[in-house]
């Protein structure tokens, strides 16, 4: 059994919380006391039916306003997979949460209301999913029961979305008509829509192939922590601990360490449970080398003939997440892999209108939830790849050094 991480997004009334509630309910991942609590709350609110959305709306302010404030994480499992759902709010002011949820997602699930069709927000969510390079995208056309399960309505939305999607770099797109409220096409194929021949939502989630989405080609091992036991038994032990960001490493491999450029050979790859033959992306391991060279946190182990860019000049897309705007000339702390440095904004090339994809070349700042292309100059070289090639060596965050807030998320286009 493996894990699928999915991010959901939708507008306020698309029924996203109901859909998640439905998935939890139908996979028997909600417990009777949670159901009872929701039934009680639904009655108190005067709802006609058990409001499954209340299963996911957690905070008091959310229940009062009927909206979702922050990314909520949900868990359900079937015999095939464990699912981690990052449930993100749809309203415009919370784009930063969607970006947060999408950053680790294998699949983005976007909801539209069949009666309303595509909204600006649906386009924005699709764009953000591709910007964050979520490998799989699923569009759920919800509330099909309210349009008489009409194939025409579904096909119109699908055609419109497919046309928009052609402008984006979408790896894999699936479109499914559903009714979250009534359970149509959620777990099993709905008899109300015989014209639909695709998989049910859950069937797709259980079967979508994600093993090859990870970068297993370019060896990237950001050194996170140096293990040096202060004990007699391990007097000369020196291990480089970290999580593999890309590729497959094996004992005996010749490797290069950046930024020094020294080369060595992997003596062993260790875990607390013993040595392993190989380590691949997302494994946390400890690497020991045959040579004693000076390596510390923030360095990167890679291959001699396949190294990341080593550069202080970074061209990146930035999603701005703070009330105080980003402007050229500002300085921030930048956290990238296990390396923290400082960065100055050299230049804002354009702000992107996420609805029309229009580039505003005259933009002078990025406000909260704006996305733009910037050039940064860092105090230390970053060891990075194009974000599209590797999310974990291409992504970074910007931190305001005065407030310590995380103010921006960046995705490397190019490093020179």
């Amino acid at each position: 059994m493996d894990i699928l991480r999915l991010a959901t997004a939708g507008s306020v009334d698309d029924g996203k919380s109901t859909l998640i509630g439905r998935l939890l309910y139908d996979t028997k991942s909600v417990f009777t006391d949670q159901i009872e609590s929701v039934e009680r709350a639904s009655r108190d609110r005067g709802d006609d039916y058990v409001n499954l959305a209340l299963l996911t709306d957690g905070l008091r302010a959310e229940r009062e306003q009927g909206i979702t404030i922050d990314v909520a994480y949900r868990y359900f499992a079937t015999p095939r997979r464990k699912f981690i759902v990052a449930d993100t709010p749809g309203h415009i002011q919370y784009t930063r949460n969607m970006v947060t949820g999408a950053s680790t997602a294998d699949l983005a699930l976007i909801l539209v209301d069949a009666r309303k069709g595509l909204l600006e927000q649906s386009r924005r969510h699709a764009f953000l999913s591709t910007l964050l390079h979520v490998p799989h995208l699923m569009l759920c056309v919800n509330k099909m029961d309210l349009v008489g399960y009409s194939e025409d309505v579904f096909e119109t939305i699908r055609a419109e979305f497919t046309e928009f999607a052609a402008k984006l770099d979408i790896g894999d797109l699936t479109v499914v008509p559903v009714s979250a409220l009534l359970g149509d096409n959620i777990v099993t194929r709905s008899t109300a829509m015989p014209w639909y021949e695709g998989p049910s939502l859950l069937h797709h989630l259980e079967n979508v192939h994600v093993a090859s989405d990870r970068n297993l080609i370019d060896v990237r091992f950001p050194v996170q922590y140096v293990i040096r036991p202060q004990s007699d038994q391990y007097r000369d032990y020196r291990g480089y601990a970290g999580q593999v960001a890309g590729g497959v490493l094996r004992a005996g491999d010749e490797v290069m360490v950046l930024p020094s450029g020294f080369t060595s050979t992997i003596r062993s790859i260790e875990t607390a449970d013993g040595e392993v033959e190989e380590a691949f992306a997302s494994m946390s391991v400890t690497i020991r080398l045959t040579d004693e060279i000076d390596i510390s946190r923030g360095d990167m182990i890679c291959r001699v003939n396949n190294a990341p860019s080593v550069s202080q000049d970074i061209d990146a897309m930035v999603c701005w997440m703070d009330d105080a705007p980003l402007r050229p000339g500002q300085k921030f702390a930048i956290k990238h892999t296990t390396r923290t440095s400082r960065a100055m904004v050299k230049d804002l090339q354009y702000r992107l209108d996420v609805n029309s994809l229009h580039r505003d070349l005259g933009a002078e700042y990025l406000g909260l939830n704006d996305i733009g292309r910037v050039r940064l100059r860092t105090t230390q070289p970053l060891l990075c790849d194009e974000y599209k090639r590797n999310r974990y060596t291409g992504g970074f965050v910007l931190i305001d050094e005065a407030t310590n807030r995380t103010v921006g998320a960046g995705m490397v286009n190019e490093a020179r």
Partner: protein
Amino acid sequence: MTRRYQLTQLEALESEAVHIFREVAAEFERPVLLFSGGKDSIVMLRLAQKAFHPARIPFPVLHVDTGHNFPEVLAFRDRRAAELDLQLLVASVPDALNRGFVQAPPDGTRNRIQTPVLLEALDKHQFTAVFGGARRDEDKARAKERIFSFRDEFGQWDPKNQRPELWNLYNSRVHLGESIRVFPLSNWTELDIWHYIAQERLELPSIYYAHERTVFERNGMLFAVNEFCVPRPSEPTFTATVRYRTVGDASLTAAVRSDADTVEKVVAEVAGTRITERGATRGDDKFSEAAMEDRKREGYF
């Protein structure tokens, strides 16, 4: 690409947790791990061992002792800390009551008053990062909390003002007096915890497994008769085969009827169970829909 380059669910969760432990050890000067002797904190200790092997765990552990403990759990706590050669710090609620630092609420429960005792201990030792074993599947408020949860100088959580957390990058910067609560088990469920306990053959305090105990029923839950939990005249006592799903404050934590006396049987039971861990056994979260949210805002875990 073949399937062998895909981690299983437990491997992926373990790898994520190990990464988080190492990140904190690398970026904070004074981390501490909350260790109660409960199953989640036992799993936490195992993950910390794995993160730093073959070196020792490079931080102390802290127990906020409510004074309402199951003796089996305290004994286990002391033994485990000694085995791993860990520095065990205890922040005592009874001591804080004696000093007049906190006042006992009229109902005698100590859940709420352990928060100031915790905050005092963190302040005294100048801990800037505090590992907790909370999971997001436990509660609706926890479901919205970050892995690195920023707390102001009062230890308070502000759900509307959380730091965005992208990829595996965690913002560990704090000003003097502020701190980060770190939750490496965020993405684990109760069932994952039990699968891991089985896989790692982790020893647990005996009360997690089925045993006979004198109990009484209150609010539909079974409570053990002990010095903290005395039945009222209207509450008859009887013997039942029970086990504990959580081990919190002994005056508040209820037992569940169970015949599961081995880890395999507990895994099977948890997989088939229909009531959440906290809903079945924690009197403290039943008071209001937003009980946990309120306590977290005050600085609770």
